[in-house]
C-alpha cells in the first residue's frame, strides 16, 4: 500500500501553479429553475484560465476588467458574461432543459459529470417516485432501473429485495448502500423518502469496485438533500391514501366445502357421511351419485358452542385502511454555512388488520465553512424511529386460506371459534390478530457522519469522515392464553428482547484535481475502517396474573423464567486509490485499485486486492460525428473490474463448539446438549457442548469479475437519449456452506470457496423528451433488462446439495434457482390411457399422469429433470409523463416475465393433500367423468398418486404487467400572490391494474404464495414550497 501513497506524494511535488495579477471574481451558475449547476466550465475568454463550478454552483476565478467569462455546459448554449469595473458577483443562468447527460453523479468517494462516466451507472429520477406512499423508497423504485430487480410485498413493515444484474453469489445478494458517503448493508426503508436528493445505482464492477469489499452485488448511492447557498425555503408535503386488498384468493364457502367433500368421498367410493361435520342427503349410488342436500349440524363442536357459520376468512382479516405521510423540511443556505432540518411521519395501517407501521424520521444536515472557505466541517445525521405491529401476518394469511368456512369467528358465548373435529390444526386468524394487537417492536436507527473537508492546496482536498450506523430494537410481547376450537393453550407468557447492532465507519480521502489544457486528471486515495458489533439478549416468563400489555413486564411473571443472549463482531480495513483522466473531453480513462481486509478470514487470507479500469470515448466530440446533426452525444464505454465478497458468518474460518443448553424444538430438531442424567425429570440439567461448524483456515475472499460494454447516446438535440449496456459477470471462489456427507454429523457444515457463477445480460434505457409547445411537454422513459444466469463450477463432492439427481443431471450449466422435479403430463382421461401408461403407483382416471422421462416404463425418482427456474426472462418498465401548463400527468407500467412455483395449488386444487383444510374454489371445477375438460385432478380424500410431489403442475407462468402508478397534479402557485415557490396538489393510484397470464391460477403472480398481498392504493396529497 505504501507505494500508492508515495506515488501521490511524488505527483504532488511535481506539479506547480502560476498566479495572475488580476482581481478575484466569484459567482454562481444555476439552471432556469435556480438549481445550482455543478461542473460548469468557466473560461476567461482568450486565456487558458479556466475553473469549474462546485456542488453549489459556485466558482472563483481571476480576470481583469474588459475581459469576458464564458460558461460551458454540455447540452446548454454557452453563455458569455462581460466584466466591467463594477462586476463583483457573476450570477448566470443557463438553459439545460432536456439535458440529462449533464447531471453530476456521485460515483464513489467523489463526484463526476455524467458525461465522464465510463461505468454502468443509472441515475434515478427521484421526482418520479417522490410522492408514492410506499414508506420505502426501494419499493417505489421497482421496475424503474434497468438491471435492478426489486421484489417486494404489500406489508406496511416489509422491506424489499434488490438484485442488481442477476444472482451473483450463492449467499447474500443484497447490494451495498452508500448514504451520504456512509456504506451500509441495511436498505432504505428507514429513510424519509422526501429527504432523498438523488439515487444512483452502480451496476458493474468497474464503477463499484472502489467500494470494494461489499460492492460485488452492486452499489446504490443515495445523497440526501442539503441546503443550497443563498436559498432558504420551507418544504411541506402531505398525503393521505386509501388502500384496499385487491384480489382475494377464492376459497370455498361452507356449503361448497361440504359439496366438495362429498364429491371427493363419493369418487373414492367411501361413505361421505363418515365425517364429523357434514352429513349428506344423497341417493347412495356410487355409480350415479346425486346429492340432494348438504346437511349442517346444529353445532360443529361437541360442547355446542359453535353453530355452523359461513366465514370468508379473508374478509375477516382484511380492511380498507389509510396511509398518511407528512414531512416538513427547512433549509437555509448562507455564505458561511448551510443547514437543513427535516421531520417526517409515515403511518400505514395495512390491509391486514393491525398490521400497522409507523415511522418517524428526523434529519439534520449542515456544513460550516471557515479558514477562508478552505475548511468545511459538517454532518449528515438522521434518526429514525419505527413502531411495527408484531402480528404473525404470514400465519394469518395462511390460516385464512386453510381455516374452514363453517368455523365461526366467535363462539355463541363470545369466545374464539376454532377448528372442530377433523379440521386442520391451524389457528383462527382473527384470534391471531386480536391477541397480538398490542404487541409491537420499537426500532431506532441513528445514521450519519461528521466530516471535515480541507482544501490543502487549490485542487487538493483532504476529507475525513466518522460515520455511525447504529440501530436497536426493543420488543415486549404478551402471548395470551386461549381456547379456540380444539386448540387451546392455558399458559400466557411475556417475552422481552433487545438487539443492538451497528457499525462505526472511519474514512479518509485525499482528492486532487488538475486541469491542464486538454488534460483533466483526478486522483483519489483513501482509507476506510469499519467495525461492526451485534449483541442481543432476551428473557421471558410465564404465569402472569393479568393478560394486559400494560401489566406484562417480566417482573409480573412468576413461572418458567428463561433468558438468552448472544453477540458477534467483525472488522474491515481497506485502502483504495483511483485515477480519472479525460483528454480533450473525448477520451476518458479511469483506474481503481482497492485492497480490503476482513476479520472473517483466516490470518493468511485476510486481504484481497480488487482492481478495475474503464475507458470511454466520446465519439460525438470527433469531427466526423459532429457532421451528423442528429447526433448530439455519443459515448462508447468499456469497463472491467473485480470486487469482493466476505458475506459469511463472523467466525466461519474456525472450528467451534457452542454450549447449547436448550433450544426451542417446536419446528426443528433440538441441537442442545443438556440431559436429565439424574432422571429427576425436572430442574437444572448437566450440559455439554455441541459442535457447530468445521473451520477452514484457507477461506478467502470470493471475487467477481465483470466486463461491461456500454453506449450512451443523445439524438436530435438530446430529445432522444439512452444507454445500452451488455455485461458478463463471473463470480468465482463463491463462499458456500454446502450440505455434507451425513456421517460427519453435527457441525459437519463448513464454509468453502467452492462455486462459480456466470451472469450475462443487458440493460437498456431510452428516454424521449420533447416540448411540443410552451405549454406542453412530454417524457417517455422505457427500460428493459434481461440476464441469463448459470452455475459454471461446483466441486464434485458438493454437487449433490444442489438441485439435480447428483449424477448425470446437475445444476452445472443451469440457472442457480432451477427447479428439479417431475413433468406433469395432464390428467388420465380414459381407462385405456391409464392402462397404456407407464407403471405409476396410484395412477387412475382423473389423476395426474407423470411423464416417463427415461422411458423405462416406471415412474420413479429417475423421471425427474430440470423443469424451469425462477430467473425472470426479462423485465421492463415504461414511465410516461406529460406536463401541460400547470397540470402534470404521469403513469408507470412495470412488467416481468417469469415462472413461479405456486405452492398454494396444494390447497386450491386438491382435496387430498390436506383433507382437513378449506380448499380453493377451483376444486369445484375438478375433473370428473362428467367434467372431462378440466385440468384439475379429480377430487379424492386419499392422495394415492402422490400428487403433492414437486412437478410442473405447481409451476406457472408468473408474468405480469402492472400499472404501478398513475398520477395527476396541478400546480396552483400562481393562484397565490405570496412568494410561494411551489404549490401542487395531486391525486394518484398505485397498482391499479394487473395483467397476468391466464395460466396463473392465483390472485396475484407477484405474490404467488405466502407473501403479504400488494394493495391497491389511492392517494391525494400536496407539495408546498415556501
Amino acid at each position, binding site marked *: *500500500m505504501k507505494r500508492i501513497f508515495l506515488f501521490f506524494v511524488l505527483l504532488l511535488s511535481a506539479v506547480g501553479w502560476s498566479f495572475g495579477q488580476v482581481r478575484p471574481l466569484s459567482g454562481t451558475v444555476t439552471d432556469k429553475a435556480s438549481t445550482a449547476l455543478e461542473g460548469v466550465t468557466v473560461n476567461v475568454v482568450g486565456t487558458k484560465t479556466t475553473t469549474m463550478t462546485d456542488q453549489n454552483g459556485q466558482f472563483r476565478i481571476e480576470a481583469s476588467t474588459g475581459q469576458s467569462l464564458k460558461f460551458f455546459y454540455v447540452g446548454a448554449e454557452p453563455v458569455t458574461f462581460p466584466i466591467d469595473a463594477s462586476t463583483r458577483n457573476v450570477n448566470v443562468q443557463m438553459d439545460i432543459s432536456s439535458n440529462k447527460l449533464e447531471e453530476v453523479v456521485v460515483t464513489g468517494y467523489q463526484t463526476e459529470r455524467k458525461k465522464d462516466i465510463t461505468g454502468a451507472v443509472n441515475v434515478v429520477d427521484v421526482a418520479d417516485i417522490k410522492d408514492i406512499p410506499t414508506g420505502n423508497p426501494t419499493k417505489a423504485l421497482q421496475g424503474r432501473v434497468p438491471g435492478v430487480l426489486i421484489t417486494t410485498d404489500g406489508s406496511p413493515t416489509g422491506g424489499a429485495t434488490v438484485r442488481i444484474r442477476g444472482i451473483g453469489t450463492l449467499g447474500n445478494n443484497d447490494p451495498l448502500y452508500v448514504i451520504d458517503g456512509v456504506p451500509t448493508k441495511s436498505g432504505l426503508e428507514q429513510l424519509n423518502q422526501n429527504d432523498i436528493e438523488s439515487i444512483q445505482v452502480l451496476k458493474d464492477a468497474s464503477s463499484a469496485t472502489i467500494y470494494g469489499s461489499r460492492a460485488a452485488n452492486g452499489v446504490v448511492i443515495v445523497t440526501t438533500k442539503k441546503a443550497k447557498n443563498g436559498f432558504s425555503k420551507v418544504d411541506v408535503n402531505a398525503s393521505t391514501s386509501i388502500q384496499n386488498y385487491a384480489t382475494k384468493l377464492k376459497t370455498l364457502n361452507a356449503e361448497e366445502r361440504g359439496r366438495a367433500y362429498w364429491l371427493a368421498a363419493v369418487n373414492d367410493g367411501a361413505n361421505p357421511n*363418515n365425517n*364429523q361435520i357434514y352429513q349428506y342427503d344423497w341417493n347412495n349410488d356410487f355409480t350415479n351419485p346425486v346429492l340432494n342436500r348438504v346437511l349442517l349440524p346444529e353445532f360443529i*363442536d361437541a360442547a355446542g358452542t359453535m353453530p355452523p357459520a359461513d366465514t370468508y376468512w379473508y374478509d375477516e382479516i382484511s380492511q380498507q385502511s389509510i396511509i398518511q405521510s407528512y414531512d416538513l423540511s427547512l433549509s437555509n443556505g448562507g455564505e458561511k454555512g448551510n443547514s437543513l432540518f427535516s421531520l417526517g411521519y409515515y403511518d400505514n395501517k395495512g390491509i391486514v388488520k393491525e398490521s400497522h407501521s409507523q415511522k418517524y424520521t428526523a434529519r439534520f444536515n449542515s456544513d460550516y465553512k471557515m479558514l477562508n472557505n478552505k475548511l468545511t466541517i459538517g454532518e449528515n445525521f438522521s434518526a429514525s424511529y419505527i413502531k411495527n405491529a408484531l402480528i404473525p401476518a404470514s400465519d394469518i394469511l395462511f390460516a385464512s386460506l386453510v381455516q374452514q368456512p363453517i368455523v365461526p369467528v366467535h363462539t355463541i358465548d363470545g369466545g374464539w371459534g376454532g377448528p372442530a*373435529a*377433523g379440521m386442520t*390444526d391451524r389457528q383462527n386468524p382473527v384470534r391471531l390478530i386480536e391477541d397480538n394487537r398490542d404487541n409491537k417492536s420499537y426500532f431506532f436507527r441513528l445514521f450519519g457522519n461528521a466530516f471535515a473537508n480541507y482544501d490543502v492546496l487549490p485542487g487538493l482536498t483532504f476529507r475525513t469522515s466518522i460515520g455511525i450506523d447504529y440501530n436497536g430494537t426493543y420488543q415486549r410481547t404478551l402471548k395470551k392464553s386461549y381456547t379456540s376450537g*380444539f386448540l387451546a393453550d392455558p399458559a400466557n407468557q411475556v417475552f422481552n428482547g433487545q438487539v443492538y447492532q451497528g457499525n462505526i465507519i472511519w474514512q479518509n480521502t485525499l482528492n486532487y484535481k488538475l486541469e491542464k489544457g486538454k488534460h483533466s486528471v483526478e486522483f483519489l486515495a483513501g*482509507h476506510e*475502517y469499519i467495525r461492526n458489533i451485534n449483541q442481543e439478549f432476551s428473557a421471558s416468563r410465564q404465569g402472569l396474573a393479568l393478560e394486559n400489555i400494560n401489566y406484562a413486564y417480566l417482573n409480573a411473571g412468576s413461572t418458567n423464567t*428463561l433468558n438468552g443472549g448472544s*453477540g458477534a463482531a467483525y472488522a474491515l*480495513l481497506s*485502502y483504495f486509490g483511483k485515477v480519472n483522466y479525460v483528454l480533450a473531453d473525448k477520451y476518458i480513462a479511469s483506474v481503481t485499485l482497492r485492497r480490503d481486509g*476482513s*476479520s472473517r478470514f483466516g490470518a493468511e487470507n485476510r486481504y484481497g486486492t480488487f482492481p478495475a479500469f474503464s475507458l470511454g470515448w466520446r465519439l460525438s466530440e470527433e469531427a466526423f460525428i459532429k457532421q451528423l446533426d442528429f447526433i448530439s452525444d455519443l459515448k462508447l464505454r468499456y469497463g472491467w473490474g473485480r470486487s469482493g465478497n466476505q458475506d459469511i458468518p463472523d467466525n466461519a474460518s*474456525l472450528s467451534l*463448539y457452542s454450549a447449547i*443448553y436448550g*433450544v426451542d424444538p*417446536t419446528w*426443528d*430438531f*433440538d441441537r*442442545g*446438549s*443438556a*440431559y*436429565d*442424567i*439424574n*432422571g*429427576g*425429570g*425436572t*430442574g*437444572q*440439567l448437566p*450440559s*455439554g*457442548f455441541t459442535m457447530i461448524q468445521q473451520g477452514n483456515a484457507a477461506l478467502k475472499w470470493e471475487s467477481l469479475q465483470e466486463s461491461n460494454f456500454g453506449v450512451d447516446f443523445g439524438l436530435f438535440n438530446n430529445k432522444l437519449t439512452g444507454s445500452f449496456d451488455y455485461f458478463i459477470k463471473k463470480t468465482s471462489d463463491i463462499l458456500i456452506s454446502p450440505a455434507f*456427507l*451425513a*456421517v*460427519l454429523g453435527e457441525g459437519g457444515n463448513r464454509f468453502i470457496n467452492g462455486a462459480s457463477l456466470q451472469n450475462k445480460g443487458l440493460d437498456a434505457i431510452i428516454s424521449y423528451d420533447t416540448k411540443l409547445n410552451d405549454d406542453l411537454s412530454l417524457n417517455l422513459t422505457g427500460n428493459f433488462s434481461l440476464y441469463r444466469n448459470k452455475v459454471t463450477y461446483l466441486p*464434485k463432492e458438493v*454437487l449433490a446439495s444442489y438441485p439435480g439427481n*447428483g*449424477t448425470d443431471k446437475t445444476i452445472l450449466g443451469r440457472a442457480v434457482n432451477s427447479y428439479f422435479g417431475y413433468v406433469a403430463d395432464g390428467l388420465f382421461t380414459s381407462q385405456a390411457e391409464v392402462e397404456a401408461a407407464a407403471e405409476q*403407483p*396410484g395412477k387412475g382416471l382423473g389423476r395426474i399422469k407423470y411423464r416417463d422421462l427415461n422411458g423405462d416404463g416406471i415412474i420413479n425418482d429417475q423421471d425427474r429433470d430440470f423443469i424451469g427456474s425462477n430467473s425472470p426472462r426479462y423485465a421492463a418498465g415504461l414511465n410516461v409523463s406529460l406536463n401541460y401548463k400547470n397540470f402534470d400527468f404521469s403513469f408507470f407500467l412495470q412488467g416481468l416475465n417469469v415462472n413461479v412455483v405456486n405452492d398454494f395449488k396444494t390447497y386450491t386444487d*386438491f382435496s*387430498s*393433500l*390436506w*383433507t382437513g383444510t378449506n380448499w380453493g374454489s377451483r376444486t369445484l371445477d375438478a375433473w370428473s367423468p362428467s367434467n372431462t375438460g378440466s385440468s384439475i385432478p379429480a377430487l379424492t*380424500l*386419499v*392422495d*394415492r398418486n402422490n400428487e403433492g410431489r414437486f412437478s410442473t403442475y405447481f409451476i406457472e407462468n408468473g408474468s405480469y404487467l402492472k400499472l404501478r402508478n398513475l398520477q395527476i397534479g396541478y400546480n396552483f402557485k400562481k393562484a397565490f400572490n405570496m412568494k410561494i415557490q411551489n404549490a401542487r396538489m395531486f391525486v394518484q393510484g398505485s397498482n391499479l391494474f394487473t395483467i397476468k397470464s391466464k395460466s396463473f391460477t392465483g390472485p396475484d403472480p407477484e405474490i404467488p404464495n405466502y407473501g403479504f398481498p400488494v394493495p391497491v392504493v389511492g392517494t391525494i396529497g400536496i407539495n408546498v414550497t415556501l
Partner: protein
Amino acid sequence: MFTVLISCKKVLDEPAQGVVSSEDLGTPENIDKMVIAAYSALGNDHYTSPYSSMWPYGSVRGGDTYKGGDGPGDLSEFHLFETFSLNRVDNPLLDQVWFRLYVGIGRANDALKRVNEISDVDFPKKAERQAELRFLRGHFYFLAKILFKYVPYLDENMEKTTYNTISNRALPDAELWAKITDDFRAAANALPESQAESGRVSKFAAKAYLAKVLLYQAYEQGEDHQVTSINASKLEEVNALADEIIASGKYSLTTDYANNFLATTQNGPESIFAIQYSKDDGTPKGRLDYGHALNYPMNQEYGCCGFNIPSHDLINAFKTDVNGLPQFTTYNNVDVAANLDFKSSTFDPRMDHTVARPGAPYKYKTNFIFQRSWSRAPAIYDSFASMKETVLPEDPSFQKVPPFIGSSKNWEIIRYADVLLWKAEALIELNRSLEALPLINQIRNRANTSTALLKMADGSATSNYNVQLYQPGVNSDWTQAYARAALRFERRLEFATEGYHFFDLVRWGIASQTMNAYFEIEKRRVAHLNDARFTKGRDEYFPIPLNQINFSSGLYKQNNGW
C-alpha cells in the same frame, strides 16, 4: 500516511464471540460434559424423523398403526413408509433420520476420543465413561443397522477427513454386527452394576442390549434380506445374558402393565434403558419427548395431531378366544374394531392400555372418555388413538408446546419384559420350547392382572377381559411351531405401538408374508392402503438415502432391490 493511524494487523483480530474451540474442551470437567452431550443426543428426538421413538418405522411399517394425521399428505414421507410401494430413495426424511443417527454417533465418538486421551489420574471415571459412550454409540449404530442394513462404520480413531473414504459396504453384514456387539460387550465389561444417576446406563443395560443385538444377528440374512440360517451359539449367548440379568435380581415386571407408560412410575423396576425427558429445566420448552409430539388426540385438552393411529388389525389381535388365548390365525376374521363391540368377545387388557377408542376412558381417566370427534381424519384413518406414549393433561409431566404436545415422561427402549421374551425366543429356536413356556406365561399373567386401571366411571371393566396362561395339553399344544407362534404373538401384544414390531418381523424373516397379508385385508377397511404392497427382498430395509449415495460420489452402494 494513513497506515500510521491504524495498525492493520491488530484491528482485524476480532475474537470469536460466545463460542469455544475444541482445545478448550480438554479439561476433565469439560470431557465429562461431552459425555453428557452424547447422552443428550438420545433426548434430541423430534417428530419430523424420530429415532428415540421408532413409531413411523416399526409401528406404522409393522401394521400396528396407521400414520394418521390429516391425511396421506400430512407428513407424506411417513405415508410412503406405510405403503412401502410408494417409498422412494429420495424420501427426504430417510436422509434426515440417517443424519440424526450419525449426530448421535458423532457425539459419542467425539467424547470417546477425548476420554481415551486423558489419563486415569486426571479422570478417574475414564473406564466407566468409555463404556457408557460405547453403549450409546452401539445404540445409534443398532438403529441405523435395523433401518438401513448397510451403513458406514466410523469410530473415534478415524479422522473426519477420512470419512468420505469409508463405504457403507466396507464391512460385510456380519462384521458390521460384530462392531456393534463389540461396543456392548465392552460396555457390559466396564460398567458398574448400578448407577446413582438413573439416566446413566449400567452393566445390565449393556448386557440386555447385547442380548438384543445378538438375537437380531442370530437370524442370519442373505443379500436379499431373507433368513438363511439361525445361529445357535448366538442364541445360547442371548439365553445366558438374559439369565445373568434375571439372576441379578435388579429387575422385575411391574405389577401393573400401566406403570410402564405413566410418568409417575418411570425408572421403575421394569425399566432397563429409557430415554430421560425433563421439563421446567431451564430450557425454552423443556427437554420433552418430541418424538411423540404429534400423537395426541384432537380435543381441546390436547389439540394435535392425531398421528400413530392403531390399525384394525392390531385391535382385533387383542381379541382372545374362549380359552383366553390369542387367535394366531383367525383374529382378523371378525373386525371388532369396525363394529366397536368390545363386550361380546373377550380381550387382552393390554388393548385398553395401548389403544384409545370411542367410548372408553382415555389413559385410565374415567371421566375423560375418548370421543370420535377427537380423531382427526376418521374418514381415512378411523377413530382410534395410541396411548402408551401420551399422558393426561393434568399429569405433572404434561407440557403443551403449541401447536404440539409434549411430556417429560420417559420413553422405554428396553424393559424387562423384553429380556424375558428374548430368552423365550432363543429357547424356542434352540428347540427348548418348554423352557420358554413359563417366561411367556409370566408376561401373560402380568397382563391378566393389569386391569385395576381399566374401569369405566361406574367401576365396570372397560372391555370384557379374558387372558389365560398357556397350559400345554389343556388349552394348547406346545410344539415348537406353536410356541414360536405364541411367542411372536405375545411380543406383538406386549410391545404393540412401541416401535419395534416391524423389526421383529424382518428378524423372523416373515415381513413380506405378514405385511402383504395385512394389506390384503386392511385395505378393504381403510382406503389409504389401497396401493400398499411389500416387495420381498427390498422392503425389509429402507434404501440408502439417495443424497448420501450422491454425496459419497457413488462410494455408498444401494440396498438390494432399490
